[in-house]
Structure formats: C-alpha cells, structure tokens
C-alpha cells in the first residue's frame, strides 16, 4: 500500500525561533527507512514545531529537512508527499468518508476509477469499508482516526506523521489503536514520526524515542535505553518514575563511581566527570531498590504502604527527609514492613539509572 521500502528522513541543524523564543535549537535527527520514532516531551518542548517543519507548514529559521538525502526544506507541503494525521483528525466535515479518503488522489488528478479502487482498498485496510457514505460527524473517535489514517495513506506518502494520535481516545480504545497503528506501520514499512507527551505510549510503540525539552534534543535512543540509561537529568525524571538521592562523590575510577549517602557508600558501575568531594545526584527506579527489616543499607522510615495487585508501593523517607518510592513483589515483601515503622533501603549499585550533577545541592548533605 506504500512504496515497498521506506524512506530515510533526516533533520540537519534545525533551529526555529518565534521572535525571541527558541522553539528548536540545532536539532539533528537521523531516521532510518521504516523506523517509527517518537518525539517525546512536555508541552512547549518543540515537538509540534518539528512536526510542522517536517510537514512543511513551517519553514525553519536554520537547517534542512532531508528525505533520502535530498533537501526538501524549500518544497511547499502540497508537493512533499508527507502524510499527517492531526490530533483532532481534521476530517473534512462536508465530505463523506469516501470523498475524504479520495481527496488527495483527486487533487493529484487521478482518474475516477482509480480513485474509487484506492478508496475501497484503503477503507478495507482500516476496516471501515461499510462507512464510505457516512459523514465524519456520524463516526466515533476511533472510526474518525481510522478514516484520517486511510486518507493519509491513500496518497502513498513517503513519510507518515502522527500528531498526538491517541490523546483524544478513551483508554481502552487507545491501546487497540496503538496496536493497530503499530501493525499497519510494520506491514507497510512506512517511516513514521509520532509526536506525544505520553511516555508510556512512546515507550510501547516506538523503535526509537527522541526526548525533547525546551527546544533541545536531550536523547535519541531505543525505549529500553531511554529508560535504563537516561543521558540527562531531564530524561531521567520525565520518562518513568525516578528517585533522586543527594550524595557526595566518595571515590571514582574511569568506569565506576562510589557515592556516599549519609554513612553508607554505594559502589556504582557508572562513570562521572565530577571530582571526588563534589555533590552528586543518584537516580534509581522504584523497582530497582529493595526494602528490608534486616540491618544494612540506608535507614528509612516507611510513611505509607499501597498494595496494587501483584506488587506493593512503599513511600519511605531517608534520614535527611528525601522521599523515595519503592515497588516490589508482594510475595517478596516481608509482612512486617508496615506504615510508620523503620526499615533499611538497599540500593544495588549495578541497577541505578543515572548519576547527575546536582543542580541545587542541599547545604551539608
């Protein structure tokens, strides 16, 4: 339904300013043919600006957009063959589903018979064949999204752009559509860029994730790497839940760092460019720490215990008052780990997610 092989998409040194506001700052992205890459970040991070630049609705202040190595920055959107599905689907309200899907082909001046055949094929692909004569407002949100996708794929775009595609759907439908879009994307091998602020969505659907913050590309990597080895403090806190614990660099080698927290020293297998004696932030995911009544580790006080199905969430306080969340299997949790009791927090130095410069160290920590 699209070209047999996907197309490569590259952003080279893209910078975009709105007046004094820098919406994108020297962004470089290399997207392989057939890849699905998510642009992930909070609102105002520049992800929508980048999508508009790729689609051609915005001309970047600096830099180039390349498809298969050829710059398309100067080409208007209607000649780029880049399909986009909008957050609100943007179906033409005065046209039937079939006319919507055939719109791009009619604009290209294709014969009527060919348009009808392609429309039928596309509606089959998204399982909407029975709805060709309906108007968009007669469809549910999920159905409208399928039509928007079919309309976009009908022109056999070289690149597919999805702008917050699942945010308007309710939770159950969202998962179904995520699976469906992933399946269609795999099947067609179309290079896809998805914009989202939902980290779970990005983690589950993407081949790679580009995390953006304030116009800067923080990290571009596979979902597991983004989660396990976030390169910056922003990525670390934006993706997943992170416990940030203040410490001091106690010892360092080329590849390892010892971090002193209170009276304990935790040997980590991550390097740092900070010097011995500098304040540092150690980040560890809730599922990578363990609570125990047996002495050893950092002394903590349990503030709350919340059972959620197979696991327990503990909210504990370190001696200096830093809150830490712990998630562990209920089966592996001692029954005497109750609220308002003391326990010990065991941090495995091999399972921490990152060591970062402490931007705001507490005096005396």
């Amino acid at each position: 339904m699209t070209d047999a092989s996907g197309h490569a998409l590259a952003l080279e040194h893209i910078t975009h300013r709105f007046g004094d506001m820098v919406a994108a700052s020297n962004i470089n992205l290399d997207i392989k043919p057939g890849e699905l890459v998510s642009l992930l970040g909070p609102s105002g991070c520049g992800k929508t600006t980048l999508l508009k630049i790729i689609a051609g609705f915005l001309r970047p202040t600096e830099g180039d957009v390349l498809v298969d190595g050829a710059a398309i920055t100067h080409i208007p959107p209607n000649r780029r063959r880049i399909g986009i599905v909008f957050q609100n689907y943007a179906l033409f309200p005065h046209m039937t589903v079939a006319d919507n899907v055939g719109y791009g082909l009619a604009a290209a001046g294709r014969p009527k018979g060919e348009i009808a055949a392609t429309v039928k094929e596309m509606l089959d692909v998204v399982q909407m064949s029975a709805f060709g004569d309906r108007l968009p407002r007669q469809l549910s949100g999920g159905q409208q999204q399928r039509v928007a996708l079919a309309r976009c794929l009908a022109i056999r775009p070289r690149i597919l752009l999805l702008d917050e595609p699942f945010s308007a759907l309710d939770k159950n439908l969202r998962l179904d559509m995520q699976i469906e879009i992933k399946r269609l994307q795999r099947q067609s091998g179309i290079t896809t860029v998805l914009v989202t602020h939902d980290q779970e969505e990005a983690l589950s659907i993407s081949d790679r994730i580009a995390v953006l913050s304030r116009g800067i590309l923080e990290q571009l990597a596979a979902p597991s790497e983004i989660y396990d080895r976030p390169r910056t403090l922003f990525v670390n806190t934006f993706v997943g839940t992170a416990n940030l614990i203040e410490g001091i660099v106690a010892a360092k080698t080329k590849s390892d760092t010892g971090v002193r927290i209170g009276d304990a020293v935790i040997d980590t297998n991550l390097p740092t460019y900070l010097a011995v004696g500098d304040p540092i932030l150690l980040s560890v995911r809730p599922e990578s720490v363990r609570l125990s009544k047996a002495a050893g580790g950092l002394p903590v006080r349990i503030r709350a215990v919340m059972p959620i199905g197979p696991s327990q969430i503990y909210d504990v306080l370190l001696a200096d008052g830093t809150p830490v969340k712990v998630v562990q299997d209920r089966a592996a949790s001692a029954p005497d780990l109750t609220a308002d009791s003391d326990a010990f927090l065991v941090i495995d130095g091999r399972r921490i997610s990152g060591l970062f410069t402490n931007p705001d160290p507490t005096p005396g920590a």
Partner: protein
Amino acid sequence: MAAAATEKSREWQLALPLTAFFALFFVAPLLLVIGISFQATRRMTGGLGLNQYAAFLGDSLNVEVLTDTLLLGVKATLLCLIFGYPLAWLFTRVSAKLQSLLIFLVILPIVTSVVVRTFAWIVILGRHGMVNDTIVALGLSAQPLHLLFSEAGVVIVLTQVQMPLMVLPLITVLQRIDPNLASASSALGAGAWRTFFKITLPLSMPGIIAGTILTYTACVTAFVTQSLIGGSRLLYMPMMIFQQAMDLQNWPFAAAVSVIFMISVLLIVALLVALSRGRAARLYG
C-alpha cells in the same frame, strides 16, 4: 419533576412583553397597511378590490422601479461579498492587535450617523470631490465622472455602509473553521486554490448566505442613502412609497406598493434561506 415541568411550561411567558410590543407596533400596523392596500379608491370610501395592485403592475414604469431596486440590492450585495470576503479571511489570520483595528474599521459605518456619512460621501463623490479630482489629476479621464446622482454612486456608498452586515457573519463562520483542515488539504497535495474552493468556501457558505440576506435587505430599503446619493432623477421603491404616501397622500396605492415590495424581498430571502437549509442539513444535520 411535576414542578419542573410546570416551570418549563411557563417559561414562554418571558417572551410576553416583546410579543405584545411586536403585535402592537409591528403586526397591527402591517395588517393595517395590507388592509388599506385593498381599498379600491384613493379616498378609501369602502369599496374593496385589487385596483391598486392592477394600477402598479399595469404601468411598466412602476415595474421598472421595482426591478431597479431589486437589482440595486444585487449589485451592492455582490460588491460587499467580493470586498468583504477577503477582509474577513484576512481577519482570521492576523494578530489580535490588528484584529481589533480591523473590527473597528469594519463597524465604523454603523457607529456614524447615516446623515453625516451620506453627506461625507456627497463631498467625496461630487464633481469637484476627492475622487474626481484624483481621476482628473491622474489623467484617467478628461472630464469629472458623474458619480453623484448616479446608480454607480449609490452602489459604492451602499457597499461601504452595509459592509459590516456582510463581514461580521463571514468572520464568525471563518473563525469557526478548523485551521488544520487547510493544513490537511495541503499535506494531501492540494494547492491553495483547490483548498479554497473545496474546503474553505463550502464551509463558509452559511456565513455567506447569512451576510447576503442581511446586506440585501438593508440595501434595497436604504431610504436615506438611495435618495440623497441617488438624487431626484433616480427613483427606488422606498422613495416611491414615501412620495405616494406623504406627497400625494395616496395611501391605498402606497400601501399596495409596500406590500408588493415586501413580498418581492421576502421571496428572495426565502430562496436564500432554502439554499442555506440544504447546506446546513448536510453540514450539521
């Protein structure tokens, strides 16, 4: 439940004061006019008949005044649409600051007294007015043009005066159109013209029809503008009614002319409403 139902059933009483006002000062005089139009003689001696209608329709000069008036409305309304649509479109695409400036310029004709702005136009359009001085100075014409006391002048002034009635509904409708629709059309390969004719124009049809109805009815009944700019050589229906009723004291004939004029305009409005119903049904169900 029952209390709520009674409350609901009594809500219509809120409309009573306006209904009474309307019945007393609009419906009653209107019925009176219709009644008088069936008086057979000028002296209204009691004999009823269609004599006044026959007299109007029997004279081709009268029918000409009617068609002139209806066509005057068509010309001015078309000009309002042609100038107003780009203005309304521009409005939806500029900054909030420029928007307030534009809206001020658009409603300026409404907030100026009709007599003041008509006299201003007489000064502008006169033989030695600004327009003619410029035309002569630029060498576009050796002689000043007859703009004042001509139909062209009336159309120009009506276009300016009634512009807000066209532009305001257009702005309302254009602002409601999702800008993503134009972007989607463009991404699907459509050029700017195709996007306009296939997406923007059909979706702004309700505003075009509403603006056309308002502008048209206002243009054909614009007594002051028609008579002051048109002068005594041009005769339109409102002036004709005025002359018959006030100067000649021929009330039955004036009433018949009024009824004929009203029905003609209502027919045109009904046609436009029917058009918009068909569209609205498709758009909004």
